[in-house]
């Protein structure tokens, strides 16, 4: 059993790659140091706390590991490296991740040396199923491949809006895909899970919005593939992204996990918006994340039919009243206790009540929420520019969009399930991101989520001109990830192995 106090300290330093800089001589150290070895006692109290989380490093030296230590066996083969930061002031050990090295494949190490790398937040190594999951950011990917380096620059807010709305967003899916039956689905690398996707999405949303992480007062993390039955993952997200002011080693943020099948995140949009709108909250921003390593039993087993559609990824939305890119104009939610999809506590994979999934579940709730919202706001289908529906498979969202009277050019932009699979809690928010990636100012977007169990949330959003000005800050958008030349396709058995994690 790993020792939890050690886990706390290691992940506190390692997740964020905390480092120190001497204010007197400028010498830098990996980890937190109270004084500089160069300057001695006079530097006490003069050490500046820095971290390498948003930095890019340089791969100095590397070697192939194909006989790992026991806890890294599931990685099989990987590149181990010395990575330097800040022109060599700091050098750390690290491994390259997001690489499947085939047995017998020649690796040109000198081709890797000297290249830029980006630290990635990942699972550290394997542990037994009862242990706390260790994490670290001493995992790196090449900056000129799937995941580019992006600066995180905090922007001073320019304008306050009347209504709260979306201030920034980020969507993250992994580099790996499985291509079957005309569908591509995102597959996590073996060291990824719902938590790492949540952090990645949140990081991209902060980069996109330019919002100061210390001003985010609440974070909701919605997932149904939480690797813990008991233990929040929002706490990890809050700590890694340093949400809220840090005091001592505690973040001044309210972090909460939410769960309602595929609407665990979209359900919280209105809560986040309401919270930042509440005058006494003093809270400038709230973040809503939906992330899943969507669960499915192997094909041929009970619940295995889900295995044809599940994806991997996360989306994060920051809500506030400043520099809004899409204001929320209204919403409608509905719920019924319809058991179409569930997983008991002790079970590994969810089951699927086949006869419930269509009419009495998905269609009934999506239809209800959407029509009620349209009635409430007195809208016709032609009044909105885009319609986004939850996408458990490629057929359902098209069928409901047609039934509700929307035209292909209103809903087709949002259809992403063919590219990433059903990312569960991240699913309809991914569709929304695809629309926001290309919408113009003053356009209306109607989005309706669906969560098994069952319920739907329908929102009407209106974009602002800031949508366009912020767009350039987001390199890693939907199109970038869907059409990336570095996507790697895996076969079914590799997909199952990666999905199972380390």
């Amino acid at each position: 059993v790993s020792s939890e106090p050690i886990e706390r300290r290691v992940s506190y330093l390692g997740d964020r790659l905390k480092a120190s800089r001497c204010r007197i001589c400028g010498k830098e150290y990996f980890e937190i140091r109270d004084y500089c070895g160069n300057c001695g006692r006079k530097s006490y109290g003069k050490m500046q706390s820095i971290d390498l989380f948003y930095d890019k490093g340089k791969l100095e030296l590397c070697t192939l590991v194909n006989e790992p230590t026991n806890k890294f066996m599931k990685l099989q083969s990987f590149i181990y490296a010395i990575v330097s930061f800040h022109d060599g002031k700091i050098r750390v050990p690290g491994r390259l991740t997001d690489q499947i090295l085939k047995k017998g494949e020649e690796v040109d190490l000198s081709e890797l040396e000297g290249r830029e790398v980006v630290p990635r937040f990942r699972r550290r190594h394997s542990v037994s199923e009862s242990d706390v999951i260790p994490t670290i950011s001493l995992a790196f990917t090449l900056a000129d491949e799937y995941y580019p380096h992006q600066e995180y620059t905090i922007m001073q807010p320019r304008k306050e809006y009347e209504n709260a709305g979306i201030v920034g967003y980020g969507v993250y899916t992994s580099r790996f895909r499985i291509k079957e039956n005309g569908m591509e689905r995102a597959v996590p690398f073996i060291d990824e899970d719902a938590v790492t996707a949540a952090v990645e999405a949140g990081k991209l949303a902060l980069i996109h919005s330019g919002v100061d992480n210390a001003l985010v007062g609440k974070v909701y993390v919605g997932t149904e593939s939480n690797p813990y039955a008991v233990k929040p993952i929002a706490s990890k997200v809050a700590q890694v992204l340093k949400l809220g002011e840090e005091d001592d080693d505690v973040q001044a943020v309210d972090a909460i996990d939410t769960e309602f099948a595929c609407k665990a995140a979209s359900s919280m949009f209105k809560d986040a918006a309401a919270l930042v709108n509440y005058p006494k909250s003093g809270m400038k921003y709230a973040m809503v994340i939906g992330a899943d390593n969507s669960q499915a039993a192997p094909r041929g087993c009970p619940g295995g039919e889900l295995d044809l559609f599940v994806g991997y990824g996360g989306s994060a939305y920051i809500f506030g009243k400043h520099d809004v890119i899409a204001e929320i104009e209204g919403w409608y939610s509905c719920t019924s206790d319809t058991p179409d999809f569930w997983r008991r506590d002790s079970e590994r994979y969810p089951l699927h009540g086949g006869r419930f999934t269509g009419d009495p579940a998905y269609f009934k709730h999506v239809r209800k929420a959407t029509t009620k919202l349209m009635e409430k706001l007195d809208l016709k289908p032609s009044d909105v520019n885009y319609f986004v529906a939850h996408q458990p498979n490629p057929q359902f969202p098209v069928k409901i969009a047609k039934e509700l009277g929307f035209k292909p050019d209103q809903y087709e932009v949002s259809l992403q399930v063919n590219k990433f699979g059903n990312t569960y809690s991240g699913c309809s928010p991914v569709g929304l991101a695809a629309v926001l990636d290309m919408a113009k100012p003053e356009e209306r977007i109607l989005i309706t989520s669906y969560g098994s169990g069952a319920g739907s949330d329908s929102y009407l959003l209106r974009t602002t001109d800031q949508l366009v000005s912020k767009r350039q800050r987001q390199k890693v958008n939907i199109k970038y990830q869907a059409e990336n030349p570095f996507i790697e396709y895996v076969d079914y058995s590799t997909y199952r192995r990666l999905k199972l994690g380390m």
Partner: protein
Amino acid sequence: MYDFSHAEALAERICNSCNFSKHLKAVLKKCICYQKEVTTLMQNRPAIVAVGRTKFGEHYGKEPEKLIEEAWLAASRESGLERKALEACYISDCFLPITNKLGLEEGFLSELTELHVPMEVTRSVSAALLTACHAISSGVYSTVLVGGIEKMTDRWDKIRDDLMLLEDPWSYYAGGTPEVNHELMLRAYAKKYGIKGEDLSKLNLALAEVAVKNHAHALKNEYAQFQRRITVEHVLSARAQSQKPLGLYDFAPISDGASAVILTNENIAKKLTSKPVYVLGCASATDFLNFPGRADLTHFVATRIAIANALKMAGINLWDIQVAELYDQSTVMEMVTMEDLGFCEEGTAWQCIRGKCESYDGFYEVNGKKLFVNTNGGLKADGNPLGATGGAQVFEVFRQLRDEAGERQVKTAGEAPKYGCTQEFEGFGTKGYVTILGRD
């Protein structure tokens, strides 16, 4: 009465040859000059009167206590001393608490020997010997046991993870293995000295020849783990099979074993034996645990400091040393250590090895002189039970200096060597030890 000029010159050379910051240079110089002069302690000069060891390798059926008993009994027999003569014990082991759930090893040894004398546990025989020498020199004790035990094969399936305990935890968390630093050092070395193309192939062959040479030496060592001749082709094919620059034959094995040394002062030694071997110089130095964070990724600064201090203490010249036991945990370590000790210029040891090994006749040629290196087979072939390894190195130099090495005996101009040294590490260059032995 001593000539320190060589040690001082070496200190100067070390400082000038490294790419160290001004700060580190100052630290290094201070370290080298820090060691006290020891002329006043001559009457208590530490001397080895007997040595003992077990065969290294897998001792499936033997507990750790059986191994140390075997080593001690051999040394005891040679010296004629009974355990009751021991005034203190300095024992080393690296992993007994992990491999054999033995925490307070001193108590365990007390129980075995029924002795209640002071006992201390260190992590290497060199460290134990260093501490014991200080105690003998200061006159606190006159007869002590120095020894080491290791039982690594009892954790065969987990020992590579255990070995990472000797390194920075971050390296382990990043997926490091016991081999990666050796490989990274080799790449850093080739880069720094611009060795590429044909030269790089020659360097790689030189490293292969280090392993071949050490296996050849071990053929004559009845205690060695591997008494088996290997060829360059074996080394190369193991590398090809693992798709790496270093393969199975480039690394020392996992071993069990024990070693024992009986240390007295000069006066007692002369009564016990006609051929005492003196510990003329012993020194250690420390480097960062975190290898990537070290100033120099191509060499071991701890060895450089330790050899300078040990030479200064011994008052001999580096070139007086004829036989050296180096800590060849990998072939890279043997090559780099040849430079760190000062036998070869930086970036050139591979040429010296290569030039010599192609037509190997038992020694390297440095500075126009013969240097016999790892005559017992080194860690590569003799075995590397960490806590006992240094004892096997002392065992070998002791035998060579006394002309008792049998088939392995090396000679210069028909005479057994007068001075020899052992060089040991704890971790990947984190602790560096050099011990200089000499005879009358």
